């Protein structure tokens, strides 16, 4: 008995001393906050924050090179947790953003030039006469956005266009970066009225190729009670654009738009509205915009 106790405790003592010395000798400083941060990260490694991954994001927060609110998937709740670890006050968190496709020209609206056969990749498709559609500004419908979406929020719809599930979209920006025609824009969920066409051609040309193109008729401009929508110069032409600072979501422009290129939508579906208040839904930041007034 005694032997056992002595043996074990002396072994323990020896190892303890050796390790103690080693710990001093080989000490490497690591900020414990990095590890704490890493534990609360969503772990999607989506890169929305601009860092190579969640671990890098955590390091960058501690280093102070990024702001803690850069993580779109984590949203406001993560921001508060980060702030708690970093010891900073949580400031007003920005409104939740979702990606919106700025084209409604599906294969029932837009004239096609040819039948495309080959890999389903928008960049590849574009090398052939800027895609199979007569409109050179619109979506080429090969679904590169859907392939890069880490949250499965973009699915290819029946009429060829990708459909964003605003409920799942976290605003991570991947589709915005991927789309070769820059057809995605992150829109705050409170902005219900959007111009969903980027065709800058003259009205006649645009109309000939697509029945839901912006034809620069300026009817929206004339009817807007807030002077919030204008046909502005963009690239080599013009296109309608809404000033969200002034827009009140009245939807008059969308109702008057002859080609329905301005669209008034509810970003989050009815079911979501009903669920708010009971159980929080993923992605819901309780911004309240969707809830009935």
């Amino acid at each position, binding site marked *: 008995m005694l032997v056992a106790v002595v043996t074990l405790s002396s072994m323990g003592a020896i190892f303890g001393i050796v390790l103690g010395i080693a710990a001093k000798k080989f000490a490497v400083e690591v900020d414990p906050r990095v590890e704490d941060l890493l534990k609360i990260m969503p772990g999607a490694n989506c890169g929305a924050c601009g860092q190579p991954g969640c671990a890098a994001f955590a390091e960058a927060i501690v280093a102070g090179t990024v702001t803690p609110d850069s993580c779109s998937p984590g949203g406001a709740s993560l921001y508060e947790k980060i702030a708690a670890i970093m010891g900073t006050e949580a400031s007003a968190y920005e409104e939740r953003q979702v990606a919106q496709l700025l084209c409604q020209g599906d294969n029932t609206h837009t004239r096609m030039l040819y*039948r495309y056969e080959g*890999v389903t990749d928008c960049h590849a498709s574009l090398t052939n006469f800027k895609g*199979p559609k007569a409109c050179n500004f619109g979506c080429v419908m090969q679904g590169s956005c859907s392939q890069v979406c880490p949250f499965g929020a973009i699915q290819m719809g029946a009429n060829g266009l990708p459909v964003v599930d605003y409920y799942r979209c976290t605003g991570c920006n991947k589709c915005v970066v991927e789309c070769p025609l820059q057809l995605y824009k992150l829109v705050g969920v409170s902005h219900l009225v959007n111009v969903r066409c980027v065709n800058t051609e003259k009205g006649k040309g645009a109309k000939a190729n697509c029945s839901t193109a912006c034809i620069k008729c300026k009817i929206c401009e004339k009817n807007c009670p807030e002077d919030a929508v204008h046909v502005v110069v963009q690239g080599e032409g013009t296109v309608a654009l809404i000033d969200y600072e002034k827009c009140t979501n009245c939807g008059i422009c969308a109702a008057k738009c002859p080609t329905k290129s301005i669209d008034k939508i509810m970003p989050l579906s009815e079911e979501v509205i009903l669920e708010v208040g009971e159980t929080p839904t993923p992605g819901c930041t309780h911004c309240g915009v969707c809830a009935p007034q």
Partner: protein
Amino acid sequence: MTTSNDLLVVTSSPHVHSPDSVPNAMRDVLIALCPALIAGLYFFRLPALLVILSCVASAYIAEIVCLKVMKKAPTGEGSAIITGLLLAFCVPPHLPVWMAALGSIFSIVIAKHLFGGLGQNIFNPALIGRAFLLASFPVAMTSWSRPLDGVTTATPLGIMKEATGQALPSLGELFLGSVSGSIGETSAIAVLLGGAYLLYRGHIDWRIPGTFLGTVFVLMAIAGAIKGQGLWYPFFHLSAGGLFLGAFFMATDWVTSPVTKRGRVLFGIGCGLLVVLIRLKGGYPEGVAYSILLMNVVTPLIDRYTRSRVFGGVKSHA
């Protein structure tokens, strides 16, 4: 201008294609297996027929069920039939039919479809099926019978390994296939005919069977010389057991063998070495199946380290 549709087709080049296709290649493999099939049926009669039918049918059904369960479009290229047939070729003719079916299902489900189906498996499915059966039912899988009359007897390699005192069959018998053994492997000439057809059609690379058989021949010749046996010894090892079948039909499996030419040479040599090792030193009289499976394990690494240099690049790239 009249077109088949309102619009012309725009695609990427090229606009002409070789007549080769996966289904065609599979059909050619089936044709190449026919001589061995006929030989097997001739020597082992009804039991062989039952085993073959059971293997092929269960492989085919398993394939269809797998595709259905995984919600994939039916491929219809017939690789499952080949897997079933090859498995039947390397089991004893008197194997209980349900065992044959089980092996076949194991091949298709575990070795092929769990890995994603056609073209993505790491191991040769038929050989996995055989190894599974051998490990699971060692008695049934090593009960051999003489061709035509069905009397129980050991295989030529078994006789040699266990030194049971039975007379070894002559080289001529081995060549024709009138010896005991698995259904499709006894007749060297039939298998060689099929192999020659595949080589002629360009579906297999000579490097794998060439180096495989060459390695076995050379090492067995040396071993024979040490043992004081004559030149018949390497020839005996070449034509006994499933060496030809393995070398021409299983080691050359596109999916599970290396894609580079140098890699194929290494693969063949590796297979040959392992066969010799297992036959001379190992616990089994026959080692073709295991040697190929072991080289299947190494194939990804071989591919990785035998990449050829790029045109205009420095000599060695690895």
